[in-house]
């Protein structure tokens, strides 16, 4: 706690010059320190408490003024692993609660509790590659490729979808976007074209 002098660590730090700008920030406290020292030299007072209080006043003032530095200067923390795990849990809960739409619910339509396997098929004579892009995969035209079936021009894929509405298109050879002729509906995509729509029910929707 101290070095045998009766002064605190902070006072020693002050004496050692570790806080060089403290006196400039609080001349009054510095004056108090000088007066207390003079009194001691002249045998009028016992050193320690007064000096300590004066120095600590400077230090506390400095701490108040530079509190913001804590946020911008490197800090060293001692963290219990169990508390770190708790922090991660809080983060996960926070993201799930406040994250708005999620990957499991890209349309913000709810019903993200289950998934249903849905089979998509397209006859695409002459195609060398067919993919499925839609609201369920952020319209990534490479994420869900279809596989050529036994029939030469039949392409298929089965994907898990959440109950609710999904819009999608087939992408042929990475260039041509075409609707699904077997979709429940075709709707305006807002860009002057049409998207296919499928409504997935929790109990065994099957597409062909």
């Amino acid at each position, binding site marked *: 706690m101290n070095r045998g002098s009766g002064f605190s660590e902070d006072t020693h730090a002050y004496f050692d010059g570790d806080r060089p700008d403290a006196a400039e920030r609080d001349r009054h406290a510095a004056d108090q320190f000088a007066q207390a020292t003079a009194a001691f030299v002249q045998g009028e007072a016992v050193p320690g408490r007064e000096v300590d209080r004066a120095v600590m006043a400077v230090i506390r003032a400095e701490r108040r003024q530079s509190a913001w530095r804590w946020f911008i200067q490197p800090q060293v923390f001692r963290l219990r692993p169990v508390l770190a795990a708790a922090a991660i849990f809080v983060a996960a809960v926070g993201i799930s609660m406040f994250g708005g739409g999620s990957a499991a619910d890209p349309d913000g339509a709810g*019903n993200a509790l289950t998934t249903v396997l849905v089979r998509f098929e397209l006859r695409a004579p002459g195609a060398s590659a067919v993919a499925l892009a839609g609201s369920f995969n952020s319209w990534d035209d490479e994420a869900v490729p279809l596989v050529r079936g036994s029939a030469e021009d039949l392409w298929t894929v089965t994907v898990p979808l959440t109950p609710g509405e999904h819009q999608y298109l087939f992408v042929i050879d990475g260039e041509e976007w075409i609707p699904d002729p077997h979709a429940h509906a075709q709707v305006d995509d807002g860009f002057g074209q049409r998207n296919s729509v499928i*409504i997935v029910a929790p109990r065994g929707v099957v597409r062909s």
Partner: protein
Amino acid sequence: MRSTIVLLAGFAITVAAPAVALQQADVRAELITRGAPQGFADRVATIVAAAGEAGLPTAPLSSKALEGWAKRGRVPPERVLVVLGDLANRLEAGRDITVEAGLDPPPGSVVAAAAEALGRGMTAEDVAAILDAAPTRDVAATGLTVAASLAAQGLDRAAAVRAVREASGEGRPPEEVLEFPSAVANLLAQGVPMADVARRILEGGGLPLPSTPGVGGGRPSTVPATKGLPPGRGRRPINP
């Protein structure tokens, strides 16, 4: 220990505060990853952030932005931004209707479904009518989605709204209401005229008869459907 508490508090604040910023950063980063110009990504992020700050669901906007960029071969970026602005306006209108219907704070799923319904030509009165009949927010969101889909399938808009309202009134759960579009698709695929489809929906109050889980879009019935919607077409079930 004090440092630990400070660290935990800072961590929580950092995570909990910026849901909107998270969405904004997500779509911006995703667009740039996919090769979009930074200026375009920034403008999209600005629109998404503004919507989030207004309390609107941002997922539909992010999805539409990614869709527009994916179709960039045929859709110029400026057009994407216009479409996003229109969608934001519809989300705002959907939120207002939802609040007026008594859902306050408005659930994002309901607001998104209302905006989608408005975008497909349903009126504010249609949306309000469906919300008024819905006993829960899940039913409300599902009802809006299904009604919009039925209308897109060619069903008369009033009939679509009425079918969903009646289903809500009968206490049908959302998972049953979600089967309407499949059943309608099956009827149409069988060559049933749209007028008859509408009649059977309204007479049957949506889906017809109690039955076992089945295949195709609808659920096969053990009784011939003399009214209402038919069973599925007997496709091979993948996830019965």
